[in-house]
């Protein structure tokens, strides 16, 4: 319920580390820009959960089109570009990262132009892993054809229940198989010690990122999903470098300080929610304000937890990379996903789950095969399903969703009031 005249309490508490985040990300883009302009270092394009460590170990600057897609979404420009990709034969029902990214490219526009880039950095090679979806192969193939550069990929089995040694070996073998092509483009030999080093840095960055996310187990939580969706930038694009490690040390320290001083991410935390599915990039800020106004903190999410590859090990860089990237939530069967979610909602003391069914991202919409009902039966934790999309705002009905979210919080409020009687 809201009353006229009462001031909005949706004031968000900003993280001080945001300044360091900006510097860290600026540094990343400056290195990319320099490599693109001077051709001093080779540029590899990589999928967001692709073999970034291998690429960094071989001296590539690594560019992530998914990060670019999220930038287009967050900049509220995706719907300007999607129709162009659709006109070129890409369905509006497939990944809207893909359609907005290709559409923007065809229109010769990119938010990177604000940072002085003429265009997205020209790739020397494109490297993907299908662990997240098949679209990435089609997406990268578009650019491979356009730039006439090599494309190599790792094909990971989907819906993995039993993560057997055979599966890990198959993926590990594929890591080995792409190396000769990488060497040719990089004009340098693969070096196992260098790979061990980047795998080690990636592990350390992931562990720190996990610790950051786990700070939200504290009541009240010092960080919410909307913060994490922004602050995950370094673990996505600088995984395997010291830049990510250094940044997460700063963020972690701030969160520890917040806990000591009892500072919460939302001004008043009455409800703790789990977010399942992709962010709605074009509504990140307004949703953050809405939940804050509803005294609700989104304390954990599948999305942000997906960049925790703490199985990476310097001792066995190939096998551990294969294991880590096959263990990823999105590659697992529903049975495994249910177990993971059940544990997360317990660990983070969650009172409700919101499933975002993203119209163009089937693989990141986990309410399509009845998981939400099964998990409800197991946990009794109420849930809400909202329909939208990661990047295409035309798939999202904002007013209807606001009503649904407000009602859901009222619903939780009713249950909590009763349980305390």
């Amino acid at each position, binding site marked *: *319920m809201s009353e006229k005249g009462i001031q909005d309490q949706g004031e968000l508490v900003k993280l001080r580390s945001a300044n360091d985040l900006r510097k860290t990300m600026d540094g990343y883009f400056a290195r990319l820009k320099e490599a693109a302009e001077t051709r001093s270092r080779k540029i590899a394009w990589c999928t967001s959960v692709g073999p970034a460590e291998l690429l960094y170990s071989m001296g590539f600057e690594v560019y992530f089109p998914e990060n670019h897609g999220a930038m287009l979404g967050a900049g509220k420009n995706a719907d300007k570009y999607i129709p162009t990709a659709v006109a070129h034969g890409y369905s509006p029902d497939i990944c809207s990262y893909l359609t907005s990214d290709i559409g923007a490219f065809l229109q010769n526009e990119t938010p990177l132009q604000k940072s002085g880039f003429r265009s997205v950095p020209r790739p020397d090679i494109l490297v993907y892993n299908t662990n997240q979806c098949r679209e990435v192969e089609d997406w990268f193939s578009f650019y491979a054809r356009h730039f006439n550069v090599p494309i190599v990929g790792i094909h990971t089995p989907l819906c993995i229940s039993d993560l057997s040694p055979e599966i890990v070996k198959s993926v590990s073998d594929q890591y080995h198989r792409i190396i000769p092509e990488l060497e040719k483009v990089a004009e340098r030999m693969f070096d196992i010690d260098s790979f061990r080093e980047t795998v080690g840095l990636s592990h350390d960055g992931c562990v720190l990122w996990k610790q950051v996310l786990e700070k939200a187990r504290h009541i009240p939580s010092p960080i919410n999903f909307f913060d994490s969706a922004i602050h995950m930038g370094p673990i996505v694009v600088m995984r395997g470098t010291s830049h990510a490690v250094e940044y997460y040390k700063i963020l972690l320290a701030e969160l520890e300080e917040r806990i000591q001083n009892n500072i919460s991410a939302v001004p008043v935390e009455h409800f703790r929610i789990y977010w399942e599915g992709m962010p709605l990039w074009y509504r990140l800020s307004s949703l953050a304000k809405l939940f804050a106004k509803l005294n609700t903190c989104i304390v954990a999410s599948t999305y942000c937890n997906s960049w925790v590859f703490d199985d990476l090990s310097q001792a066995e860089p190939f096998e551990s990379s294969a294991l880590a990237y096959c263990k990823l939530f999105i590659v697992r069967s529903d049975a495994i996903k249910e177990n993971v979610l059940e544990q997360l909602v317990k660990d983070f003391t969650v009172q409700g789950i919101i499933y975002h069914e993203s119209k163009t991202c089937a693989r990141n919409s986990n309410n399509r095969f009845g998981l939400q009902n099964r998990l409800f039966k197991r946990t009794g934790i109420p849930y809400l399903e909202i329909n939208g999309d990661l990047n295409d705002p035309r798939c999202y009905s904002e007013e209807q969703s606001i009503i649904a979210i407000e009602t859901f919080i009222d619903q939780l409020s009713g249950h909590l009031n009763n349980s305390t009687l």
Partner: protein
Amino acid sequence: MFRLGLDLGSSYTKGVLVDDNNRMTAFHCVKSGYNFNNAATKIITHFTENYEIGYPIYTCGYGREQVDVSFVSNSELIALSKAVYEIHKRSCSIIDIGGQDTKFIQVNALGQVEKFKMNRKCAAGTGSFLEEIAFRLDVTPEEFTEFAKEATREVKINSFCTVFAISEIIGMIKNGATLPNIVLGIYNSIILRSVELSLIEDHLVITGGLPAMHPTIVSLFKEKYPDTDSPEHSQFLAAYGCVLLNSEKTRTEAITT
């Protein structure tokens, strides 16, 4: 002094006056149009001719915060559940078919919302779907109801989309299907879109503007789910629930202070 509940919906704004004994006393409904405040003003003006209204008023719906008088806004789903529970005093499943939204709500034995679901971003299965088809066929809602009574067999409407449903209907007419049988098919397609929101395993209560204007829908629901009813003034229940929610709050506050 009467308390006013207003449900400012996408198509219509519904107002109900509630007396000191929490009884619905007077009803008024106007088209929402593009200005919710105008719709609210029309209802307030209408009621103040004969009744004294207390403030704040209690609102819900898309326009719940777009009125110029003092108000307390509520979730329409919680308000509707409150009103239905007040009438039935038992657990039940509610299907509310409004102008733009179709909602499923499961209310538990304590009157709490156990779960709810709303239609996707699509008007098929809502009041707007029927309005558009009626407009294209040049048939009034009253005539729809009369046509349905004359139906001899259902003609299935397969289209998910309002626009394509009309093309499909035109094709059916061309192929000799009768309007009464088509109307029955349209009603049943709305029911199918509603019941896919969730399993119905409890007493079913049908509410909203569409069943109020098309009572045949309720009869058709009863054929599929015998344990079904639709309370009187079902279109006004969310507005009524707004008042009930707040009168309970006021009482609780009075006791605790």
